[in-house]
C-alpha cells in the first residue's frame, strides 16, 4: 500500500519551509497571515483555490485506487504539491501559456478542463484528446493554452522560453510559465532555458516544484548547489524561494513574477519548496528509500491543512462544507470513470494519423496491412 494522506484531520502543525531564511511565506500556524506578501484574496478566490487543491487531492487518491485495481495503467499524482500547482496557476491569466511537467493536472483543471476529458486520457480511450497514443497523465489543451505533456525531463523548459520570446517579438502581452521538479534542474534544457531566457529577457516564469525527491534521489544528491534559486541567479535570472505549501505565498510570488514578465523585466525562477507526499508514480515504492519519520514530518505541513486553517480563521470553511464538497467531487469523478470505462479503444486509423499533416504513402500502406491482418488479444481488456 502506498501512503494516502488523511484528509484534513487537524490544523497544520508545521510550517515546513516557512522558517528557512529568505523563504517567502504568508500563512502562520494558526491560519493567520502576515506581511507584505499576503495577497488579500477575496473570499471567492480563496475558496476556489482551496477547493481546486482539494479536488486534485481527491482525484489523485481515487486514480491511485483505480490503478491498483488494474482499471487504469498508470498514474502520476501531486500529493502534497497542490498549493504549488493550483495557487500558481490561479495567479496566471487565461492567455498566459503553461508548459507542464506531468504532475500539473491541477493547473489544467483550474482552467476548466473537463474532468471527463482528463479521465478519458487516463483510460486512453477513443475520446482521449491524444487518442490513446500516450500514457495516462499525458494530456494537452491548445484551447486552454496548455502545452502537451512529455515524459522526458526538462524538455518543456526551452519551449516555454521560445514561446515567451516569440510573444515578445510579436508584441503580444503574454507570458509562458513552465513547471518542473527539482530533478529537472540537472537537465540540459533547464540550463539552456534559463540561459536563453536570461540573455533574451523572455517573459517566462520558471516554476520549480522542489518536492525534495526525483524518484529515489534526494535533492541534496541532485546538486551541490545550496539552493535551486542559486542556479537561476547564476544565469542572471531573478530567483525567489517560496514556501510551496503555502497557497497564499505561492499566489503572491507568482503574481509578482507575472507582472515583471509583462512589464518587460524578464524571467523569474520561483523555487517552490514542497514535498512529494506520495510515490513518484504508481510504479514507485518510496518506502525503499525514505524514512517514515521524514514523511510524518512533512504530512504535518500538508498544504491543504495550511490553507484550510486560513479559511477557517476567516470563517469561510468548516467540516460541513468539507464533507459536502468531498462528496460532490467523488460523485463527479465516479460518473466520469463509469462513462470513460465504457468508451471503446481508439481506431487503427488513430495509430497512423497526425504523424505528419498529411499521411504519406508508407503509412497508408502500413495502415492497410494492419487493417487486413489479425487484431492482437489484449491482456488489459
Amino acid at each position: 500500500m502506498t501512503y494516502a494522506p488523511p484528509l484534513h484531520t487537524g490544523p497544520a502543525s508545521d510550517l515546513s519551509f516557512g522558517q528557512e531564511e529568505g523563504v517567502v511565506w504568508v500563512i502562520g500556524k494558526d491560519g493567520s497571515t502576515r506581511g507584505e506578501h499576503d495577497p488579500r484574496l477575496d473570499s471567492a478566490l480563496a475558496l476556489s483555490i482551496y477547493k481546486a487543491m482539494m479536488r486534485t487531492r481527491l482525484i489523485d487518491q481515487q486514480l491511485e485506487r483505480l490503478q491498483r485495481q488494474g482499471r487504469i495503467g498508470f498514474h502520476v499524482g501531486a500529493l502534497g504539491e497542490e498549493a504549488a500547482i493550483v495557487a500558481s496557476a490561479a495567479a496566471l491569466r487565461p492567455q498566459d501559456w503553461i508548459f507542464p511537467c506531468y504532475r500539473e493536472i491541477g493547473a489544467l483543471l483550474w482552467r476548466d478542463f473537463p474532468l471527463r476529458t482528463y479521465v478519458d486520457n487516463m483510460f486512453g480511450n477513443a475520446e482521449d484528446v491524444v487518442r490513446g497514443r500516450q500514457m495516462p497523465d499525458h494530456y494537452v489543451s491548445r484551447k486552454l493554452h496548455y502545452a502537451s505533456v512529455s515524459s522526458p525531463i526538462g524538455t518543456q523548459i526551452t519551449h516555454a522560453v521560445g514561446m515567451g520570446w516569440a510573444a515578445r517579438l510579436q508584441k503580444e502581452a503574454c507570458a509562458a510559465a513552465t513547471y518542473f521538479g527539482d530533478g529537472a534542474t540537472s537537465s540540459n534544457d533547464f540550463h539552456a532555458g534559463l540561459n536563453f531566457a536570461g540573455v533574451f529577457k523572455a517573459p517566462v516564469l520558471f516554476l520549480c516544484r522542489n518536492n525534495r525527491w526525483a524518484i529515489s534521489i534526494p535533492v541534496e544528491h541532485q546538486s551541490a548547489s545550496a539552493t535551486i534559486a542559486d542556479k537561476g541567479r547564476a544565469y542572471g535570472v531573478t530567483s525567489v524561494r517560496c514556501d510551496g505549501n503555502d497557497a497564499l505565498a505561492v499566489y503572491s510570488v507568482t503574481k509578482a513574477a507575472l507582472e515583471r514578465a509583462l512589464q518587460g523585466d524578464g524571467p523569474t525562477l520561483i523555487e517552490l519548496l514542497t514535498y512529494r507526499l506520495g510515490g513518484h508514480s504508481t510504479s514507485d515504492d518510496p518506502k525503499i528509500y525514505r524514512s517514515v519519520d521524514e514523511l510524518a514530518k512533512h504530512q504535518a505541513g500538508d498544504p491543504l491543512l495550511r490553507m484550510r486553517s486560513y479559511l477557517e480563521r476567516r470563517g469561510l470553511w468548516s467540516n460541513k462544507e468539507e464533507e459536502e464538497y468531498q462528496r460532490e467531487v467523488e460523485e463527479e469523478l465516479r460518473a466520469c470513470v463509469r462513462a470513460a470505462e465504457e468508451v471503446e479503444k481508439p481506431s487503427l486509423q488513430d495509430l497512423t494519423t497526425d504523424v505528419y499533416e498529411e499521411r504519406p504513402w508508407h503509412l497508408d500502406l502500413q495502415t492497410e496491412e494492419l487493417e487486413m491482418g489479425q487484431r492482437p488479444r489484449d491482456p488489459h481488456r
Partner: protein
Amino acid sequence: MAEMNLVNAINDALRLEMRQDPKVVLLGEDVGKLGGVFRVTDGLYKEFGGERVIDTPLSETGIIGTAIGMALYGMRPVPEIQFADFIYPAFDQIVNEAAKYRYRSGGEFCVPMVIRTPYGGGIKGGHYHSQSPEALFIHTPGLKVVCPSNPYDAKGLLTRAIRDNDPVIFFEPKRVYRALRMEVPEESYEIPIGKASVVKTGRHLTCLAWGAMLFEALAAAEEVAEEGLEVELIDLRTLWPLDLETICQSVEKTGRLVVVHEAPRSCGFGAELVALVNEHCFLHLEAPPRRVTGLDTPFPYTLENEYLPLQHRIAPAFRETARF
C-alpha cells in the same frame, strides 16, 4: 534568372520567405552579425534586424528547444545547427519533442520548423565537421528530411520546407556550397517535398544518390557511358517521405541498382532503399543491389577521399553490377 551558387540560393530563399512572412525567424550560433560561419545568412541581419535573425548562446538543445516553443506559438523558425556533427545535443528535442508533438497532442499542435544544417565531408573537417547523420532522422517518424544537391533545388525545396507545417531537417551539402553556379529564378518558387528528380536517363542501371555524392555518381556515370553503359541517375532530393514511385519505375526498367551515400554503410539509408527495392521490385532485379558508401568508422581527416564513395569507387560498382 540570376546565377547563384548553393549559398546564394539558400540565402535568397530565406530572404524572400522572411520578406513575405513576418513569422519567419532565423536563429542559431553566429547566424546574425557574422552571417553564419559559411555566410549562408549573410546580409539578413542587416535587412531584418536582430529580432528576426537571432544570434543565440552556444547550446544546440537551447536553439532547437526555443525554436519549438516559437513554432508552437505559430511562428516559422528556421534554426541553424552550425555543423550536422553538432546536432546531437539537440537530438532529444528533435526526436522526442518536435517529431512527436503533432502526434502526441492529437493534432492540436504542429511544429513548423526547418532545421538547416551543413553536412558531409570533403572539406578536411575530420570527425566533427564531416558527418552525414541523415539516417538517424529518417528513422524518426514525424520528421521530413530534405537534402538538395544544387542551387535550383535548394531554393525551391527550402521555400517549400519553410511553408510546410511539419518539422523538416534540411541537410546542406557544404562541399557544394560554392562548388557550382547555375541559373536560378529570382522570384520565389516551390519544389514539392517527396519528389525525386531523374538527373540522367539510362537503360542499364539505376543509381540513387543525393547531396554532394550526386556529382560523384554523375561523374562515374559519364565515365562508364564511354564504355556503352547507360546509368539512370536519380537525385532523391527528399529522403523522407521517399519518392518510391520514381525509384521503382526506374528499377523496373533497368533491373539493377546502386545506392551511393557518404554515411557509414551499416543501417545507413542505403539499407532501407535496397530493402524497399527488394520488396517492391524483386522480380525485376537482374543483379544484387549494391551500396557504395562511407566506411563503418568515424569520419577520418587525412584519408577522407579514401573514406568517401567518390567516382573512383562508384564507377567500378557500376561495371560490376551491370556485368553480374
